[in-house]
């Protein structure tokens, strides 16, 4: 177990493309950090640089206080779980788990003990003699996990390990990974493009975009106070509404509604206002801050319904209870505290 420290890590490909643009990130011992972002944001490249599968153009990567920039993956004492599992197809489950230990010159009796222990933890004992192709997707995933755990490495690196599973299994495995990591207390770096997976797993979330960090924080922090419009739109489902508004004496004017906005927020005449669909509630008679949503269509989710519509020509989604009656329009209300203000030029948070 060990802390990992990235200082100003960059990756420039021979063609000149900058995949990772100077990322610094300290990861504490035993922490579960999730790197999340859309495809091409550099999250996988960053992970592979930690693993030693990708050369580091500049900056340093430290694992357990040791600069590992020029070390082979094996010497870094890490283990990795791949998206397609990368199980050796011609080896049995047992041999898959044992391979890394054997290469490290571990005694056979010791290997047997370790593999059996891990197989017990992951409940894959009945399959030890099988080849990967005789296993279901979920079982293969467990074997891939097992291969990482059995090594007892300083850190686990996960590269979208759940994206090849169906939705139901993904949720189940997500829970198991979380539990297992808590139990073993091994420092983990996990890459995913799925924001929900990121939220549920992370101790700390790192949102990446075009090779740079947009925001670092606990899942709740990030959900409650997204630092940029990118993060606001990326984290949370359904996505946060982002609409343009004008500023006028202590308020942001949007359609016929005026949203209260503290004067001390420095910005120009335009402002981007963010509000989550679930923060838009059906307006009561007392609510002063109301918007008239012209309904375009409705999505039934069972527990709630998503009302898609327009206000002042801008798209807006509200999440409302299923029992609320719907006509041509819907009056919705938002608490001032639920409003997020962003600079429309830089996308940075204002309040």
């Amino acid at each position, binding site marked *: 177990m060990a802390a990992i420290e990235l200082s100003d890590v960059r990756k420039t490909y021979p063609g000149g493309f900058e995949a990772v643009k100077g990322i610094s990130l300290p990861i504490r011992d035993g922490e579960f950090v999730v790197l999340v972002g859309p495809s091409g944001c550099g999250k996988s490249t960053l992970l592979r640089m930690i693993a030693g599968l990708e050369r580091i153009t500049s900056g340093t990567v430290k694992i357990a206080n040791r600069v590992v920039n020029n070390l082979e993956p094996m010497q870094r004492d*890490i283990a990795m779980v791949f998206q397609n599992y990368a199980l*050796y197809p*011609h080896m049995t489950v047992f041999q898959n788990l044992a391979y890394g230990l054997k*290469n490290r010159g571990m005694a056979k009796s010791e290997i047997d003990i370790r593999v059996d222990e891990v197989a017990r933890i992951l409940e894959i004992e009945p399959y030890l003699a099988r080849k990967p192709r005789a296993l279901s997707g979920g079982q293969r995933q467990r074997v891939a996990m097992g*291969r990482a755990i059995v090594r007892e490495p300083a850190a686990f690196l996960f590269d979208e390990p759940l994206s090849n599973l169906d939705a139901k299994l993904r949720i189940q495995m997500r829970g198991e990974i979380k539990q297992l990591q808590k139990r073993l207390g091994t420092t983990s770096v996990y890459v995913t493009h799925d924001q929900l997976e990121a939220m549920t797993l992370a101790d700390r979330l790192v949102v990446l975009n075009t090779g740079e960090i947009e925001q670092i924080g606990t899942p709740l922090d990030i959900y409650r106070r997204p630092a940029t419009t990118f993060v606001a739109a990326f984290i949370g489902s359904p996505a946060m509404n982002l609409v343009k508004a004008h500023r006028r004496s202590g308020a942001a004017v949007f359609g016929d509604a005026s949203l209260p906005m503290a004067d001390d927020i420095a910005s120009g005449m335009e402002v981007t206002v963010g509000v989550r669909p679930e923060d838009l509630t059906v307006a009561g008679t007392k609510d002063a801050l109301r918007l008239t949503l012209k309904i375009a269509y409705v999505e039934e989710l069972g527990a709630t319904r998503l009302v898609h519509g327009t206000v002042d020509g801008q798209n807006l989604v509200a999440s409302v209870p299923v029992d609320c009656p719907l006509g041509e329009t819907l009056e919705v209300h938002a608490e001032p505290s639920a409003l997020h203000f962003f600079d429309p030029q830089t996308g940075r948070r204002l309040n």
Partner: protein
Amino acid sequence: MVENRPWLNIFSHIVLILGVLTVAFPVYLAFIASTHGPDDFMSGVMPVLPGPHLIDNYWQMLSQGVSTSGAPPLWRMMFNSLVMALMIAVGKIAISILSAFAMVYFRFPLRGVAFWLIFITLMLPVEVRIMPTFKVVADLHLLNSYAGLSIPLIASATATFLFRQFFLTVPDELTEASRVDGATPMMFFRDILLPLSRTNIAALFVILFIYGWNQYLWPLLITTDPQYYTVVMGIKRMADVADAIPQWNVVMATVILAMLPPVVVVVAMQRLFVKGLVETEK
């Protein structure tokens, strides 16, 4: 099939049966001829029904051969063919898989040059460079030796390309996983790549065994010592024997024995063979 047309199916069967018979006819006649005594070929038309000399003819060929032809007994020539075919097949596979591994899994200066040098071998069949190749082999004192029979035929661009093609389909993650597991390049080759290439190796082996066994021009050139004759080239010597009338019965016994091993290999490993054939040409 889209619609049911019985006459079309019957017609297809007829075409196929005719095809099978046409293809098999020469071999049938060869076999029939190998069961007769030499006198049955003196005049008239060749026999089309089996004769009584099957065992005599094959026994004579295998144990003694045709003494006047100066060729050794057939078992000796078949053994030579076997050694040559095995050396060619194993040698080609070994050097091809190693160079394909280097081409795909390493980046090194002159890699492009090496690739092109290998590619060129495709364009230089033995037939077009007979004389100088013969001279090289003679200068290396490899005439009348198993090494001379096999080594000059071992370089193969097709086998290298087949392995290269296959290696490119092996997921990168397997290589990465093995690196994380602490495998060196040669350990990765031995523990992961070689086992994964098993079917390709087997398929290629079938093709190359046939290729080696059926060599004709090369053994003809470089063997003057009968102890190194191969069976395929030996047929010619026997067919020429006694100047005028070849002893058809024993020549055809040789024909049957010469085709038997490769035909058995193809029929027994048809699936692998078809895979190997279709894939080497991709």
